[in-house]
């Protein structure tokens, strides 16, 4: 080959074509992500445009009502807070203790330990409505707990949140280097002391981050609560965890069903309130992670 093939016009044409394909592909990737983000922006824009005008003190302090201009979100917000309290009090200790056991104490290569791990991984992927069916069948029909109460809602969401906390807790505990354990054991601490005095405090920021993310997911969850009847019209904020109550996402769902057009503003405003809560929780999680994360 005397004539350099790579200088022939035919080669140049082919190269240009390949480079054009390269640019096209890159542009395709960019437009995919831009399209997704544009959808997000559109969603937020429409909610803000419809709802921002509806947020005032009356709206934030009122409870549900049949007339759109006196209806507010405080009743639902209080219901959400009570429900989240029950969820947190149950799922956090349970999740952390289970994570500690599986990571630090569980015997290796035992059949039943494997079952626990498999069922935790599967529970994390079970559709949320199934947990609602469980709550309905067990807590309401079998145990006779009061319908549409934050107690039952919190229990159901706790079962759903626990696997999330266990998984993030195990990762956080795994990230603590073995040298910490060895040091504690070497100066005479027992295994339990090592874990509770040294490993757990070091893993706590990671566990908390996972917990907050799990709680944020539970806060936005509607389907399981629909199953246990938390869709009642509740005109007064609940006084305790056994009173009938609504929660924020359920309030959004109920208002979105109203035929009266005036409720569009209420629904969007409630969505803004819910998103602000979620944003605050996720922000806190990111802050915790950045502040306390240790790179060993």
């Amino acid at each position, binding site marked *: 080959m005397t004539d350099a093939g790579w200088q022939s016009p035919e080669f140049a044409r082919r190269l240009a074509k390949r480079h054009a394909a390269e640019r096209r592909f890159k542009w395709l990737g960019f437009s995919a992500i831009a399209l997704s983000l544009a959808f997000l922006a559109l969603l937020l824009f429409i909610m803000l445009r419809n709802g921002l005008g509806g947020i005032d003190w009356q709206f934030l302090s009122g409870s549900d009502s049949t007339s759109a201009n006196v209806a507010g979100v405080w009743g639902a917000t209080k219901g959400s807070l009570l429900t989240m309290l029950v969820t947190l009090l149950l799922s956090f200790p*349970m999740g952390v203790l289970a994570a500690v056991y599986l990571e630090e104490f569980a015997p290796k290569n035992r059949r039943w330990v494997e079952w626990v791990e498999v069922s935790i991984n599967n529970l994390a992927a079970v*559709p949320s409505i199934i947990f609602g069916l469980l709550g309905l069948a067990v807590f309401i029909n079998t145990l006779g707990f009061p319908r549409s109460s934050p107690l039952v809602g919190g229990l159901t969401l706790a079962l759903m949140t626990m696997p999330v906390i266990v998984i993030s807790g195990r990762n956080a505990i795994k990230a603590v280097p073995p040298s910490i354990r060895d040091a504690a054991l070497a100066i005479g601490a027992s295994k339990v002391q090592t874990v509770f005095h040294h490993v757990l405090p070091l893993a706590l920021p990671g566990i908390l981050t996972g917990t907050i993310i799990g709680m944020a997911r539970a806060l936005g969850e509607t389907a399981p609560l629909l199953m246990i009847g938390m869709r009642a019209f509740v005109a007064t904020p609940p006084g305790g965890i056994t009173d009938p109550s609504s929660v924020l996402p359920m309030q959004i769902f109920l208002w979105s069903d109203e035929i009266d057009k005036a409720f569009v503003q209420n629904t969007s405003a409630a969505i803004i309130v819910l998103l602000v809560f979620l944003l605050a929780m996720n922000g806190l999680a990111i802050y915790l992670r950045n502040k306390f994360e240790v790179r060993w």
Partner: protein
Amino acid sequence: MIFTAVLLAVFGLGLVGWFAARARARLLYTGRGSMHSMPGYHGWHMALWIVAPALLAWGVWSAIMPGLVESAVLADPAAAQLPPDAMNRAAILADANAIASNPDAVAFNPLSNALAEPMRAAQQRFGLIGSLLVVIAALAGGGYGFTKLRAGFPARTQVERAVLGLLLTASLMAILTTFGIVASLVFEAGLFFRDVSPIAFLTGTHWAPGNAAGADLDENFGAVPLFWGTIYIGAVIAMLVAIPLGLMSAIYLTQYASGRIRKILKPILEILAGIPTVVYGYFAALTVAPIIRDFAGSMGMANPSTESALAAGLVMGVMIIPFVSSMADDALAAVPRAMSDGSLALGATKSETIKKVLLPAALPGIVAGVMLAISRAIGETMIVVMAAGAAARLSVNPFDSMTTVTYQIVQLLTGDQEFNSPKTLSAFALGLVLFIVTLILNIIALRVVKRFREAYD
């Protein structure tokens, strides 16, 4: 309630026991210089012996007390007028119970009012007995714990054993939950399949639980249109949106974007996954569905409905994008660097490398990710409840209103509640099918991911 007070008292006793035992252990410690356990552990040992038996007694008593109260009330002369059939009887007793705890409650039957007084008396009597039992258990346990308090007593080992028991119980909760799900679904679905044959349920094409009655149950519980709607919305339309967008986003973020841009764009993309589904549902119903209806109208369709499979599927697809993207991200990252380096060294452009080397090598991981995404999409509830509609029909027209398994579960269980009718029980049968399908998808996907990782490690 008297029980709340008793529980508080038990915990108070536990606290007192903790301090007392620790103080005593400290006294033992002085002048001796060595003991098996630190004084604090003696405190915990004592507190455990006070609280644990008391809680056990409390649990047992709360389980048997309603039965005792009921038999006491039935022994009352007023109870002789109770109707013989169990259903009415239970309703009147429940009413009496409500009045006993809250005098303002309204009774539907005058008999409830008459029974309320004996009910309250019985509750008070047995409540008092129960509280006494709980306190006795606490004191007995505490007394036993106190006799153990000696210098050589291995309190720490005992306490640690209790802690391990607690940890074990917590981790068994996961199995218990799984078992609870399976048992409740199978049990209720079993009741349903007593009335309706499973074959008719799984292969019938007519779904109308509303007018199911008497002998034609089998004909009205054909769930195939529901399965079709679920698959069409969740596995076809949503995936047509989510797979290209999610995959291309992942490729752009991992292969083309600079580190800084990736750091900004990725969390923003993740926001899509954090938005509650009820918000997506509202957005689909408020904004997307009317646009699609108008579009269908302009395409020449006669009265297009506001609720369409396309609106629900489209929004659901967007919701799944970050999930597909992060799964694809993992799969691409698992492909060894040497493979793409080899391709680049031979003169292939970046996009050729991605298309011909990276994607084929990452394919198992991507497929597994898509399966997980499908299992998520078919279990999604709020979007379809708010945007997909109630009409159970077999259609391939995306502008038609279609219904899904999750939509029907919500419909069947939020109407009027008559619990043991085939209509409500069918929701559990649908739930069982949904659970089994998502479980299979998850198990296969996790297997594939695991094997795929091992292949390249």
